[in-house]
């Protein structure tokens, strides 16, 4: 077992047997074997020990819950590649019967229905979608609203996630707008509902349905995606079809999306209200422990950055140049600058930004760093986007544990 507070240094560790089994595939890309016990990892907050469990089409991931599955990406994966591998991409379902059983997802069975306030209701297989509409690709970050919830203080109820409920992938699909135009939204349509094939155990449990405003749904950036990083979507990430909404939190990216319904009026479902709401405040924050006066649906990602190397707790020698690197992202305005500090935030210098994979993607940043003094050193990164939005130095708080985006310090041991 790992030491608590070590920022999950054992994450991604593999058993020797697993490692040997995979070594033919891409041994160089896998994380190094670390630690004696590969069956658990410990996230750096109270009650943070989790099993590492292998799911279909996945490498062992940090399991938060089994039924329905919620799996977190070990943080070391974010230092492997800018695009998060499909087999390491996080999983978050809400309803008991999820993911939907494979027999419902077969090509000859699965249909996307488009109905409600439209002139031409549609029912299309994935093959028909691909045949009828132009396919496009976009690289975009998918992040859970509650990513990093486990770091909230005071702690809040909900999925106790580290930083691994995010990922960046190249999504390929047809434009949602093209499909909605083919169906013909009637003028009275005020909201578009999206439902997937996951279902609750009890009839009284609200189905997981999310809504978008027509203006957003008709934006050319939204996709009905059937591929992720050049492969069909993994079962646990929405095979055969999911919604992709670049710049928006994952709660709207409906998996196994099978029903699109245009309605007039306002949808009242649980998962739009009171579920997935944030304080109606520019920072989505209120005083810790208090209750918001007014809430709005969560929507766009805020600015975040992470140091992915060195990992917390790494031993580094004085006088040796090392390359600090990490990732930064926002809701699609694009990252303008990432600043780096090696003294706990007193002095900052600009890091070098890597190649852009698009404004919605993880942006790599790097900076050469030569530690000069021995001891525990606190490294920090702070990103700013093209609007000038940045990251708070101290965490903000809201009762649902959403949208954490403060500077995340990483302590290393300089010897």
């Amino acid at each position, binding site marked *: 077992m790992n030491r608590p507070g070590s920022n999950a240094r054992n994450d991604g560790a593999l058993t020797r047997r697993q490692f040997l089994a995979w070594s033919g595939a891409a041994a160089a890309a896998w994380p190094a074997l670390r630690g004696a016990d590969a069956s658990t990892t410990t996230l750096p907050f109270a009650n943070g020990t989790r099993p590492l469990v292998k799911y279909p*089409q996945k490498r062992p991931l940090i399991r938060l819950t089994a039924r329905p599955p919620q799996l977190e990406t070990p943080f070391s994966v974010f230092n492997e590649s800018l695009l998060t591998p499909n087999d390491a991409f996080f999983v978050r379902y809400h309803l008991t019967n999820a993911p939907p059983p494979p027999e419902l997802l077969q090509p000859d069975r699965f249909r996307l229905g488009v109905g409600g306030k439209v002139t031409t209701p549609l029912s299309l297989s994935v093959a028909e979608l691909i045949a009828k509409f132009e396919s496009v690709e976009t690289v975009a970050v998918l992040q859970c609203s509650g990513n990093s919830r486990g770091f909230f203080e005071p702690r809040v109820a909900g999925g106790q996630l580290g930083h691994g409920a995010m990922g960046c992938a190249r999504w390929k699909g047809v434009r949602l707008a093209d499909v909605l135009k083919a169906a013909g939204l009637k003028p009275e349509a005020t909201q578009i509902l999206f439902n997937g094939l996951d279902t609750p155990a009890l009839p009284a449990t609200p189905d997981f349905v999310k809504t978008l405003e027509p203006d957003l749904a008709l934006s050319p950036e939204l996709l009905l995606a059937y591929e992720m990083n050049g492969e069909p979507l993994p079962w646990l990430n929405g095979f055969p079809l999911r919604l992709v909404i670049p710049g928006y939190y994952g709660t709207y990216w409906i998996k196994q999306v099978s029903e699109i319904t245009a309605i007039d009026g306002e949808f009242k479902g649980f998962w739009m209200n009171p579920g997935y709401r944030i304080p109606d405040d520019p920072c989505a924050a209120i005083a810790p422990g208090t209750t918001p006066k007014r809430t709005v649906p969560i929507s766009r990602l805020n600015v975040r950055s992470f140091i992915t190397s060195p990992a917390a707790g790494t031993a580094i020698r004085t006088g040796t140049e090392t390359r600090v690197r990490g990732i930064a992202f926002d809701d699609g305005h694009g990252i303008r600058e990432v600043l780096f500090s090696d003294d706990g935030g007193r002095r900052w210098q600009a890091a070098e930004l890597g190649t852009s994979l698009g404004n919605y993607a993880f942006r790599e940043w790097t900076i050469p760093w030569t530690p000069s003094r021995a001891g525990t050193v606190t490294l920090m990164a702070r990103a700013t986007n093209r609007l000038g939005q940045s990251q708070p130095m101290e965490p903000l708080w809201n009762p649902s544990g959403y949208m954490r985006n403060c500077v995340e310090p990483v302590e290393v041991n300089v010897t």
Partner: protein
Amino acid sequence: MLGCLPALLAFGAEPFVSVEPARNPFAGDALVLPAGQPSVQPGEGAGLVIATCSQCHSLDYITTQPPLTRAQWTAGVEKMRARFGASVSSNQVPILTEYLTRAYGAPAKSP
């Protein structure tokens, strides 16, 4: 990967982050979910918690929570009953809340 070479030469350090992810070696896995979930701590009410909560979700929904206050556990039980339609009678609510607070609770204070 060739694109990484200039960076390697320039800095002599570990390679940059590569852009492309490794191919997924598990694409051919059977689509069967693994079994297994934790149980909850023994104690009065544990049986009711297992029977009630397991109708819809695994017990790690409980065991992975941080120590929560009685108010937080009460709100959780009420959410499951009122919003999610869990079949919990009104005389069972205090049994569930008492067990959860005792087994997975934080000292009483404002959250």
